[in-house]
């Protein structure tokens, strides 16, 4: 509802869940759909593992391997410990964004609650890793380079850290919901002719948004994993 009630002809999964009598918000149902898709594809890809990958296993090895080498290149070898979280985040957001283009489904990331849940999870996760890595010395990440700068740096750092989940949430939400609103407006202006090219543009844009969320989480984790300076 955060986008102002765009017209939806039929949302299959939400109607199906509502028919069983459960009172679950729509974005949660769509997130369940994404989870089912991810689990099914994961099981299909890992069912028959072979040394020489082919078909689906090849694609997933390319995806996960590429992401892992990217994370390790940026964080270092410590990045392998947090890679599963980051990769899960990326695939979830990617499938969630692209689910918005499938007729009968809505994007779970077009709702601010899903994004806030993910962003707060990222916030807690990187602070957890910082505390686990550095113990009480993690406070040094907030204190700036010199001791006499502490009264200035501590509030600045605290605000900047608290703004991170906010900006993560709003960026993803605004992109996905804004894209949907633009598609609806273009459909009102000139149906089909103007929307088909925009679909391709938004597929690209939403893939990039999933990657941006993944990359920012990675940068935040890098900041808490490496030594304070």
């Amino acid at each position, binding site marked *: 509802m955060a986008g102002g009630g765009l017209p939806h002809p039929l949302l299959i999964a939400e109607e199906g869940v509502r028919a069983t009598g459960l009172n679950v918000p729509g974005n949660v149902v769509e997130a369940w759909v994404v989870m089912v898709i991810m689990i099914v594809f994961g099981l299909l890809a890992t069912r028959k593992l072979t040394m020489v990958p082919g078909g689906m296993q090849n694609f997933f090895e390319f995806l996960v391997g590429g992401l892992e080498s990217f994370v390790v290149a940026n964080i270092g070898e410590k990045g392998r410990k947090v890679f599963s979280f980051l990769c899960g985040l990326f695939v979830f957001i990617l499938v969630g964004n692209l689910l918005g283009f499938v007729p009968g489904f809505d994007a779970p990331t077009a709702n601010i609650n899903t994004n806030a849940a993910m962003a707060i999870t990222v916030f807690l996760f990187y602070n957890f890793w910082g505390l686990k890595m550095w113990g009480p010395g993690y406070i040094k990440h907030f204190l700036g380079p010199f001791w006499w700068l502490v009264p200035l740096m501590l509030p600045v750092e605290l605000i900047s850290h608290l703004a991170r989940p906010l900006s993560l949430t*709003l*960026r993803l939400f605004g992109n996905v919901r804004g894209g949907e609103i633009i598609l609806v407006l273009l459909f009102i202006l000139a149906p089909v002719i103007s929307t088909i090219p925009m679909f391709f543009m938004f597929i690209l844009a939403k893939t990039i948004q999933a990657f941006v969320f993944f990359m920012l989480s990675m940068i935040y984790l890098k900041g808490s994993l490496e030594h304070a300076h």
Partner: protein
Amino acid sequence: MRKALMTALNTAALLTVASVAFAAGDPAVVATISWATALAQAIAAAFCGLGMGLAIKAACEGTARNPEASGKITVTLILGLAFLESLAIYGLVINLILLFANPYMG
């Protein structure tokens, strides 16, 4: 000087009118909000586009001079673009709030 004065006066007039309109809750509110959101999004998009264009220009030049650094430049570029773009997205979110979830309109 006169232009600046006129701008300031117009802004003040718009602001006062806007507060009156919010209090009244008549069709003028819709007109004011439409103007405000359209202008706000236009300004946000214009300057965000300008800033992102500058960033991409610098990245292209850097890659042309030193193609081996393109990987690092791309990472930095996407990161910076994400931060820049979030400024326009804040504008969009505020516009959505103004249009669909306005706290001043019952």
